[in-house]
Each structure stands twice: as structure tokens, then as C-alpha cells.
């Protein structure tokens, strides 16, 4: 049982385009950045429910979140301007284990979001592979360290010789499932529609260890062996509730 950090209001200090995405930076205030892979619930102006985001960058005095504006909530967050205020709850959930000897960070699309902070916390120059659906989307790799290997469809991240590495991945469900087959010990960050982020709504269940469990408490980062594939409808649902 972990205690919940209070929800607090923060000033937006920056909002910049990163390829097709928007990096929203807020004043850190009393927020802890948490473990890479943990997430924060950001209020979406004009909407009833907040939206979950993993931490992308943690420069001094700030926290930055990478937003893919694909629905009314994410659009409202991406439209925030410096000086606006936003309520934030977090960090929440279970992040990546960092006790890995030969880390390989794998991101797909907006799933690259937690990798910059993850790479910074691991230290050194961990190997990073990022996959995108098009050259336009690949412009988002600008947020990643210079040594990142970038691939664009039809080339997939799974063709990048992942075997033998300790993989820490985040991306769309088909990518995570493919990574799990190649690297059964991988740590995978999943996503699911979420109303609260702290175990209250029971909305974000995924099949974990053979039963429907709340992703916000068990995950979002889970050992590959624990997840037998989420519902096939989950990716659609994430889009429909963004």
C-alpha cells in the first residue's frame, strides 16, 4: 500500500512540437519525478477525466510530458500555453526495474515517451531503438539521445537484433507482443484507458498473471511473462478515450 501524493497545480513553462507530438513542460514544484515508466495523471482542460502520461524528461525544476493529440483530452493538453495552469497527480504505478546489466531501450511511436528519462536514469549510453510508422513521425526521434537507432516502417524494431539484451520497451500492443516473443525477460510498459490512475475506477484492467487486474497498480511496466496480451480492442479503446 503506497500513499498517494496530493494532486497539485503547476504552471506550464513550455509547449514545443517534437515531430507530430507536443512536449508539454511544467514547473516541477513539489512533484517527485519518480521511477522511469511510472506515470502522471494530467487534467485535460474542459474534460471530466485526466489523462495518463509517463514522464519524458526531468530537467532541473521541470517535468516534461510527450503528448500525442489524438482525442479531445490530449488535444486540450497539447494546446496548453506557457503561463496556463494544470492539475497533476503522480507519480503513479510501477516503473521499470533499473538493475539491468545490458539494457536495450525499445520504443514505438508515442511509446518513445518514457525513454529519454529512462536513459538518463540508467546513465551511460544505453542502446536505444525507436520505430515509427513514417518519416514524418520519425522526426519525434529528436527528443531521443543522438545515438538512438531509428527505423521506419516497413522496417520494424523487432528486426533490430533484440535477442541477448535486457529489453525495456514501450509502444503499441502488437510491438510489445512481438518483443515479448523475442525477449521473454523484457520489461514492457502497457497502456489502457484509465479514469483515475490510482486504483479507484477498475477501468484499466488487463489480463495479468491470467486474471483481469488493474494496470495502474500492477503496471504500467510488467515483466513480459505476466501479460498474455491485452484485449485486441485495447489499442482502439486507448484512441477512443484520448
Amino acid at each position, binding site marked *: *500500500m503506497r*500513499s*498517494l501524493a*496530493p*494532486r497539485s497545480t503547476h504552471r506550464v513553462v513550455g509547449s514545443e512540437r517534437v515531430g507530430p507530438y507536443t512536449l508539454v513542460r511544467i514547473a516541477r514544484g513539489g512533484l517527485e519525478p519518480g521511477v522511469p515508466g511510472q506515470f502522471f*495523471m494530467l*487534467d485535460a482542460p474542459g*474534460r*471530466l*477525466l*485526466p489523462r495518463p502520461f509517463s514522464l519524458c524528461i526531468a530537467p532541473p525544476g521541470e517535468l516534461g510530458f510527450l503528448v500525442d493529440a489524438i482525442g479531445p*483530452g490530449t488535444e486540450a493538453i497539447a494546446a496548453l500555453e506557457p503561463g496556463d495552469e494544470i*492539475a497533476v*497527480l503522480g507519480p503513479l504505478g510501477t516503473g521499470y526495474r533499473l538493475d539491468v546489466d545490458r539494457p536495450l531501450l525499445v520504443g514505438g511511436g508515442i511509446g518513445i515517451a518514457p525513454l529519454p528519462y529512462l536513459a538518463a536514469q540508467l546513465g551511460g549510453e544505453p542502446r536505444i531503438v525507436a520505430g515509427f510508422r513514417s518519416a514524418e513521425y520519425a522526426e519525434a526521434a529528436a527528443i531521443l539521445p543522438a545515438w538512438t537507432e531509428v527505423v521506419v516502417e516497413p522496417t520494424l524494431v523487432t528486426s533490430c537484433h533484440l535477442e541477448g539484451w535486457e529489453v525495456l520497451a514501450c509502444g503499441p500492443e502488437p510491438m510489445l507482443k512481438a518483443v515479448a516473443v523475442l525477449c521473454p525477460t523484457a520489461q514492457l510498459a502497457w497502456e*489502457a*484507458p*484509465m*479514469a*483515475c490512475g*490510482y*486504483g*479507484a*475506477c*477498475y*477501468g*484499466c*484492467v*488487463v489480463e495479468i498473471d491470467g*486474471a*483481469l487486474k488493474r494496470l495502474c*497498480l500492477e503496471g504500467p511496466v510488467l515483466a513480459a511473462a505476466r501479460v498474455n496480451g*491485452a*484485449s485486441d*480492442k*485495447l489499442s*482502439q*479503446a486507448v*484512441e*477512443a*478515450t484520448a
Partner: protein
Amino acid sequence: MRLLNASGCLDALAAPDVARALDGFVTKTVTPLPREGSAPPRIAETAHGVLNAIGLANPGRERFLAEHLPRLRELGVPLWVSVGGFCAEDYAETCARLDGIEAVELNLSCPNVDEAADSAAEIVAACRAATKLALYAKLSAAHPDVAEVARAVAAAGADGLSLINTLRGTALDTRLRPVLARGSGGYSGPALKPVALHAVRVCAEATGLPIVGMGGIATGRDALEFLACGARDVALGTVLFSDPGAPARVRAELDAACSVAGVASPDDAVGLAKSPETEEKVTA
């Protein structure tokens, strides 16, 4: 006035500090057998409310009593146990096994369970025979005459009413498919407030029973309106999803709202919103 959570909108074991900020914690509905609940996706936000189809996920009566209830007691918060089932005996057997709690809330109206419950009054009567605990009947406003249901459960021995449960709703995605795996779910949030205020007002007038009012309460002013319509206590639901600090905030706002409305305290506001028609009846 007591401030509670709406059943299914808070896990006190996952967020004990939120539960401790309330005057009572209402559990998720407990059914005789364990229920894994509905397949995901289970949540859909709409313009003015939230749809959920959780499907009464719960550990079942035996595990609830053996594992969950003892841990909930350690929180030191008065407990309300929400009881569900598919026939009057289901409800009554669970009631008979409960003691040392503040109240039982009979979930007579969960929209996510396909099996129709027997009549509300029959369930309440069976539970009344099974326990001396305070029995609150949670009703839906989907019934064309909720006051009639309220009178029936009052006659069957209910000590109070919880008003209202969610209403059924559907949301579609961009390609016109239902967002929820179950197709439809329970609709909650601000859109429900006028419906809930009406149900509270007519049921208070029809029965005089104590009422826990809920349905779209997000601010202290909202809570005050429920009291004015005749609720004795209020519960927070959907607002807890976005704001786990809502209990303390709503309390603070409630005091301010009382000043603005010119009432001395929340309890003094109970029942103030009588309709002119009702006042005529009362004075006649």
C-alpha cells in the same frame, strides 16, 4: 451530514488516505460468488459524463469476509458494505453474514448485470429478516416512478435510500463502434445531477427516509443542492477519479456555499427546496 463515496468509485485499500477523508467508506458491491467483471475497455468519457462497464468485479462473499473486510476495518473508517446478487436469497445471505459495520447498501440497480433482480421490495424484505443492520436501498432513476419504488422499499423495512445509481448509456468511437466492450454501461458525472436531485426530492417527500444523495456531485455547492432536495448525507463518485482530494475540497466549499445561500450549516439546508406545490399541500 456525512460525506461518503459512491460504491465502486474508490478502493480504500489502494488509497487509504482518500477513504480516511470521508465519514464512511462504501465498498464495491459484494456478490455471493467472485466476479472477474467485464472485458476491457470498461471506461468511456463523453462530453458531460463518464460511462463505465466494470461488471461488478469483486472477490465474492467468502473472500470479502475473510480477507478484505478485516483489512478495511483496520482503516478506522465507518464501513458501508454494498451488497448485490441475483435473487433475494443472495442478498439476504450476505446480509446475515455481516456485522460490526455502519450500514448495508443494497445495490438494487446495477446496470451492468444482465440478470434482472427480483422486485426491490422482495429483496429488502428478505434482508430485513436477515439483519438488524441499517439497510439503505440504492435505487435507479430509470424507473418511471422512482417514488413508487421508494415507498415499496420503505414499506418492506428499508432504513434509508441511496439515490441515484448510474443510468444506462452508450458511446461510439470515430468508426461508430461502441467504445465499451459490453456495448453499454452506467452513465455518471455532472449530466446526472438534475436527474438525481429530482429523485432525491420526490423520494424524500414520498417516504421521509434518510437519503444519501449522489449523482454528479463535484463541488460543495452541488452537495448543498442535494441536501436542499432532502438528502441527509451525500456521496462522491466520478469526481474522485479526477480529484482524490475532493472530500476535503467539497467540505470546504460546502461551508462557503452555505454562507452564499444564507443557511447556517449543511444540516440546516436539508429539505429547503420544497416545490410551491408541496408547500401548499403541507400548509393546506
